[in-house]
């Protein structure tokens, strides 16, 4: 297991390096910054000072290494817009909100997705299955920003059941709309994969053996089938996390949640490139870490993986 972990971590390093390089080059190839204002141009001397402050006059390779060195020491450089602050401080401010919302949305996805996929597989080709497939197709088709808009319009504007937006922590009712808007698509993705995986497991011999032994149907599903069907599902965790991250851009903006997703959107429109670079790195690292964790749990559950 130790050797496997080491190999997996070593493989992650080039991936992160490539993510960093691509994000760095893209961001640095993008001309200008928030100070490029056509109506109120800054004095050339001011711009020159800004360029010196952000090392923009240094050769690209020097900036590349400088940033990398800073990043490894926990500093992601000053923001263009919020000039007094380091980007890592900004992340520390806004990220916790998004982690809370993301965790609750993920929980929602699991709590809704697993029963939905199980019901669809157990009641295959019955109205229950068709209804579940209908929900799944809806979830796959409808992007989170449309979902958020529809939820806000119906639940908040028309029915007045919930506020239209804002944030008050995990136990505040204002978390409901963003949770569903972000978590709905991952829930249906989970249900879709689980249905296929469970159908495969239900056809296996050991399920027939369990049935022949006279075990109750529910017990077979939960104790035998579901447990085995969930193992291959672990591989899609990366997709689900990516979905939650990109979902936060839109949903946090629509429901006015002060998280990092909303900050990212402000940074794109405000041309705050250091923030964009830092967040691209952050999201990349999260997903790569997630994939490693998945692989490790996979290896722990299935010894064959380790030796292949």
């Amino acid at each position, binding site marked *: 297991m130790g050797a496997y972990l080491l190999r997996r971590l070593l493989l992650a390093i080039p991936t992160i390096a490539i993510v960093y390089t691509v994000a760095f080059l893209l961001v640095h190839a993008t001309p200008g910054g928030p100070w490029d204002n056509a109506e109120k141009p800054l004095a050339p001397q001011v711009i020159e000072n800004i360029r010196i402050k952000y090392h923009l006059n240094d050769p690209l390779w020097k900036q590349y290494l400088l940033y990398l060195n800073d990043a490894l020491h926990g500093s992601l450089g000053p923001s263009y817009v919020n000039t007094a602050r380091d980007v890592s401080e900004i992340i520390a401010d806004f990220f916790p909100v998004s982690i809370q919302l993301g965790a609750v949305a993920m929980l929602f996805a699991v709590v809704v997705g697993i029963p939905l996929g199980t019901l669809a597989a157990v009641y295959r080709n019955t109205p229950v299955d068709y209804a579940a497939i209908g929900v799944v197709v809806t979830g796959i088709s409808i992007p989170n*920003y449309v979902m958020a808009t529809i939820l806000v319009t119906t639940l908040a504007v028309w029915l007045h059941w919930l506020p239209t937006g804002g944030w008050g922590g995990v136990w505040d009712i204002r978390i409901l709309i963003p949770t569903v808007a972000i978590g709905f698509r991952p829930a249906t993705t989970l249900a879709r994969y689980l249905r296929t995986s469970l159908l495969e497991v239900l056809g296996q011999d050991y399920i027939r053996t369990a049935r022949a032994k006279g075990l109750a149907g529910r017990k077979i599903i939960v104790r035998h089938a579901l447990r085995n069907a969930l193992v291959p599902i672990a591989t899609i965790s990366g997709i689900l996390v990516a979905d939650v991250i*990109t979902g936060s*851009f839109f949903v946090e903006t629509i429901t006015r949640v002060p998280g990092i997703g909303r900050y990212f959107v402000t940074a794109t429109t405000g041309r705050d490139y250091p923030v964009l670079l830092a967040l691209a790195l952050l999201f990349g690292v999260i997903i790569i870490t997630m994939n490693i964790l998945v692989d490790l749990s996979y290896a722990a559950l299935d010894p064959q993986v380790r030796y292949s």
Partner: protein
Amino acid sequence: MRDSALAGVGAPARASHERRRYHRALARFKRHKMAVVGAVFLALVILVAAAAPTLTPYRFDRQDLLATYSPPSARHWAGTDSLGRDVLSRLMYGARVSMSVGVMTLLLVLAIGVPMGVTAGYFGGTFDLLLMRLVDVIYAIPYLLLVVLLQTFFTAFLPTVRAGPLVWLHALNRNTNGIAAIVMALSLIGWLDVARIVRGQVLALRHREFVQGARSLGAADAHIMVAHLLPNIAAPIIVMATLLIPNFIIAEAGLSFLGLGVQPPLPSWGTMIAEGIDSIESYPRLVIAPALILAATLLSLNFVGDGLRDALDPVMER
């Protein structure tokens, strides 16, 4: 797949076989009620998109500042927005934007992805390995995040191109209100998806008898790829294509929602949602109309895709 084994059989027999196959596929498609409904709705959207300039009652950017936020009426069937622009006309132009981005991106990703995927799958080797590594790395970054970065780059970079070989791109992007940049950003990553799927299909076929047979008869690699492999992966490619379009439409509306997509005053459903959000409490219809139409279009595309999958590839497991 059986058809290619029959490639040597006389042409008339093949033609009637093809026709039978087509009718069977059509019958299977028609069994899907939702796919048929989706196809009809989609046909309507495409029609509106194509004929928008002649169909729309008003120009999409015609402002009437004396009639802002007016409710639906005989003059403005879907009311007007914050600048007094006719919402119906804007919705119709939104269809035009969504459909053009969807179709143009699809054509571009197929044009790049199919040849790449076929060659990688057929020859294997270093090229295949590199391609798959690239796919692995790109998949580690959320698709939309990468598209946002690319689009940020394009929107800032293209206007600065005043001379040189890329100047036509700048003009194209300006004349299409930013659609060209969106299509480029989406295809630059999207083709990898196509290449990966096509490669998988080719891998599954390349050791089949009809390929071996063609090779033993002395067919050139290029001939085998074009005449034997491509026709046999056409069905999964068509299915994949219909299911890719919604992704592009979602991404375009998403970019436009963020203010990175279509440049105003050209409306996109995503822009319309973003513009309406601020006044959602007083005028929810400005948000809900584009949201629902976008949702219906995406649902239709998915239903049609599912119907096509069952019609063209009955053995494929759902």
